[in-house]
């Protein structure tokens, strides 16, 4: 019987509940120094002077490194690409300050306490310069010369004649939607332990993609890639901010180089606001035109996001308006607002996350203008093909997801908006969830051993989505082994390089390579038996042909082979693509929520939610469900709670902690989070039939919540988060 789809428990469950899983900051090396950053308190200008005397006088403090003490970036660094390097602006290569919170000195001490005390004792003076508040900056066109983010999607898109079509539309809605900057705040702050042996560098790091760290550290020092080893078996949540390579990783390795001792750097929670990226503030103008039957005839969508001064990070929130619905006339434009801030980055969920908030809200406004149920409005413009290329989707069962979700939620029999439950007014809302598929080049090796166990080797890191678990299921399926007989060896660049663990790309990318590798092993085993590959099956630890059956152990020991190995690779031109050529791949779904609003106090509560999704085949019902729940909670955070406020006079974040930046806690989330998947196998996405799961769960939720709020009390909130001040009535 197939184990695929079964709710197999996580293979790393035991080490995660007994505290023995070692994360980057849990590593220690003999002779290590603890590093603590001193960071800039001004947003723009130069470091005038750094007085380290006091710090150096403290017991345990060994050295305070300032800009001139660090090795310059090697010429190879010029060849690196942004992304996967997050930014080319590496602090402490000069005295220039580009944003508040930028490292200006590194205190190295024998103990963490001494390094912390040393950092507090360093005195810096500055030559401040006028700074630019990105939120107040005028929107500007994207500059393709500023980093490579603009190559990741389209900054402009035009199809048909949206302006002309808009004038002939029977219904037009037009509005501006905004969402604030949000910090990812993974529970594990970024951490790195760097150690040199001659010209070889080893780092224990907290990352979502090991080979990118390896390549960029190698370029920093002008080394061969093989001279750099990155180890990252467990990462404590990333949500995008550990996806690209950030300057602190380079600085830690530089410090270790200078000191000739291992250096352990664990960012503080405060550092996480200045040294790694964020999802930027995004404002969106949307116009939708529909004919008298509610069918979309024109869509225009202009997006601007804040970014830093050195690179144009682009939050591609226009993606939904050119991929969610069938429409003959579409225009999209992406703009940026540059200022003195840490460069933003891809954060759960990028592009479609912000975009679906605006579009999902505008569709609700349109549904009310036309007088249609929002599901019927969506069905009237159902995109049977990709609106951009005109190619058929690899597979799309969104109609089924609408039906499944609305049935489970009771959408068609929902209480009338504003129904009272005590002092709560009840409202229901729905919106589309969707995320495009990304595939990254990946390699894997599978080994079948004479004791009838198997293992797979890949540099992939498990950030919590559970790839080690589901890949054991896949190998087990192909080799006829129970998943607990398949071991994952991961998280080390000495292993075959895997693509990143972000963008929900791991299962489809590394999984495809894994399928190939395990199949190669199976075929080799068949050849050892002298049986035609087409005639064999793998079952219960044996290879079976018709009525004949031989155990793996017997075949291997008879052949005198200790293990059989197979390699697999998903090769992708240009680093990444969006699915098999000719089959644009996208995951789809719908989210339904019921909220309660107390209009007197402005309180908003989530009462229940149903998500129904078309994502291809589900390999593990348990880990997939957890990912979707996690995404919905993130969506609730985006909708109702999360915001990092930029202080305009100081040019810094108002709060840089977990107490004054509100995040969802257990009490915010009801147990009634219902997850359902449409039964689906996507043959055009790859051999496993999977597309992508986790990232899209956080799309659509904010719109569904805002739509439910409108349903409850008739207030249309167009600026997130939906806080009490926006809900109290008169």
């Amino acid at each position, binding site marked *: 019987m197939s184990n695929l789809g079964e709710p197999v428990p996580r293979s790393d*469950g035991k080490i995660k509940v007994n505290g023995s899983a070692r994360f980057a900051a849990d590593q220690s090396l003999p002779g290590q120094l603890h590093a603590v950053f001193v960071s800039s308190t001004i947003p723009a200008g130069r470091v005038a002077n750094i007085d380290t005397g006091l710090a150096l006088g403290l017991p345990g403090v060994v050295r305070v490194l300032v800009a001139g003490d660090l090795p310059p970036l090697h010429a190879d660094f010029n060849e690196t690409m942004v992304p996967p390097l997050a930014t080319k602006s590496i602090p402490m290569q000069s005295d220039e300050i580009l944003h508040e919170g930028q490292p200006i000195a590194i205190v190295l001490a024998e103990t963490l306490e001494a390094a912390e005390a040393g950092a507090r004792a360093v005195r810096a003076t500055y030559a401040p310069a006028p700074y630019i508040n990105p939120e107040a900056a005028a929107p500007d066109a994207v500059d393709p010369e500023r980093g490579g983010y603009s190559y990741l999607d389209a900054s402009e898109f035009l199809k048909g004649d949206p302006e002309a079509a808009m004038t002939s539309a029977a219904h037009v809605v037009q509005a501006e939607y905004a969402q604030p900057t949000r910090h990812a705040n993974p*529970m594990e702050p970024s951490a790195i332990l760097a150690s040199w042996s001659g010209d070889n560098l080893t780092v224990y790091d907290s990352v979502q993609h090991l080979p990118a760290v390896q390549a960029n550290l190698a370029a920093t020092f002008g080394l061969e890639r093989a001279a750099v080893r990155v180890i990252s078996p467990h990462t*404590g949540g990333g949500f995008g901010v550990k996806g690209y390579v950030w300057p602190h990783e380079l600085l830690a390795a530089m410090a270790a180089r200078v000191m000739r001792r291992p250096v352990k750097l664990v960012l503080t929670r405060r550092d996480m606001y200045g040294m790694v990226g964020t999802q930027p503030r995004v404002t969106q103008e949307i116009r939708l035109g529909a004919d008298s039957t509610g069918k979309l005839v024109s869509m225009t969508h202009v997006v601007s996001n804040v970014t830093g001064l050195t690179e144009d990070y682009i939050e591609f929130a226009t993606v939904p308006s050119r991929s969610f619905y069938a429409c003959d006339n579409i225009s999209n434009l992406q703009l940026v607002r540059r200022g003195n801030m840490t460069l933003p980055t891809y954060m759960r969920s990028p592009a479609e996350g912000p975009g679906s908030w605006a579009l999902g809200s505008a569709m609700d406004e349109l549904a009310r203008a036309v007088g249609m149920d929002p599901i019927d409005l969506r069905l009237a413009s159902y995109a049977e093909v990709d609106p951009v290329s005109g190619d058929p989707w690899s597979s799309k069962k969104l109609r089924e997801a609408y039906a499944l979700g609305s049935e489970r939620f009771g959408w068609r029999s929902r209480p009338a908006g504003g129904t009272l439950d005590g002092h709560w007014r009840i409202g229901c809302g729905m919106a589309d969830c969707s995320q495009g598929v990304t595939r990254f080049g990946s390699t894997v090796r599978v080994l079948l051993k004479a004791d009838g166990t198997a293992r797979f080797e890949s540099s992939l890191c498990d950030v919590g989505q559970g790839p080690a678990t589901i890949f054991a299921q896949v190998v087990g399926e192909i080799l006829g082994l129970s998943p607990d007989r398949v071991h994952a060896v991961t998280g080390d660049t000495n292993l075959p390089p895997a693509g990143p663990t972000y963008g929900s790309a791991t299962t489809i990318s590394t999984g495809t390579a894994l399928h190939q590798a395990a199949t190669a092993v199976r075929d080799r085993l068949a050849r050892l038996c002298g049986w035609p590959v087409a005639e064999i099956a793998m079952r219960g630890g044996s290879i079976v042909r018709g009525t004949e059956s031989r155990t793996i152990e017997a075949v291997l020991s008879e052949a005198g082979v200790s293990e059989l190995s197979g390699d697999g690779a998903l090769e992708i031109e240009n680093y990444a693509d969006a699915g098999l050529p000719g089959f644009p791949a996208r995951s789809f779904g719908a989210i339904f929520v019921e909220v309660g609003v107390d209009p007197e106090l402005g309180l908003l509560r989530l009462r229940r939610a149903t998500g129904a999704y078309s994502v291809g085949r589900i390999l593990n019902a348990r880990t997939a469900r957890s990912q979707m729940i996690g995404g919905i909670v993130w969506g609730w955070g985006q909708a109702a709670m999360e915001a990092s406020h930029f202080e305009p006079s100081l040019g810094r974040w108002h709060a840089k*902690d*977990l107490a004054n930046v509100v995040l969802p806690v257990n009490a915010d989330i009801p147990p009634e989070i219902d997850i359902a998947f449409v039964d689906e196998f996507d043959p055009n996405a790859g051999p496993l039939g999977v597309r992508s799961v986790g990232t899209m769960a956080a799309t659509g939720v904010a719109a569904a919540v805002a739509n439910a709020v409108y349903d409850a009390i008739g207030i249309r909130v167009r600026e997130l988060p939906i806080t009490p001040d926006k809900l109290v009535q008169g």
Partner: protein
Amino acid sequence: MSDHPGKISRRTFMRGTATVAAGVAVIGAPTEAGAQDLAPSRFSSSVTVRFEINGVDHVLDVEPRTTLLDAVRERLQLTGTKKGCNRGECGACTVLMDDRRVNSCLILAASTDGRKITTIEGLADGPVLHPVQQAFIDHDAFQCGFCTSGQIMSAVGCIAEGHAGSNAEIREWMSGNLCRCSAYPQIAAAVEAAAGEIV
């Protein structure tokens, strides 16, 4: 985020600090103006503490400024206890002190003399997981696992306090422990199941 009533209270924290202050040294983050007070001798003193950790007696010389969290992680290499914020905001560092859940980043190691500390490493009975640990696996109550040690220790405390009577009560009393992977419904379900087993 609610202030967690089950966690160490501000008053207890102050009491702990005061004990240290009287005995050894004055603790306080230097302010901009007071930086000159950082005479080298200031942190050179150390305090000897005797505590029981996971059933084993320890004698440790610690600096008065060292938190229980840093002592456990960096000195004793018990790295299962995590640091998510270092200021009492996330619960990742939760341990049991005399069977009460506390944020170990808010406890000075010097104040733990004579105390009994249990960390995640001390919870299982040999190879047999504690019911709360097993329930976390059974309910898939984590993804990355970084908050998990703190969640589990907090859950043990929550159940012992009698605050696990219903799903709603559990969610309220487990809200001092952040989980950014957002496994909240599964965590509440795991605590509910374990609570049923423990009584």
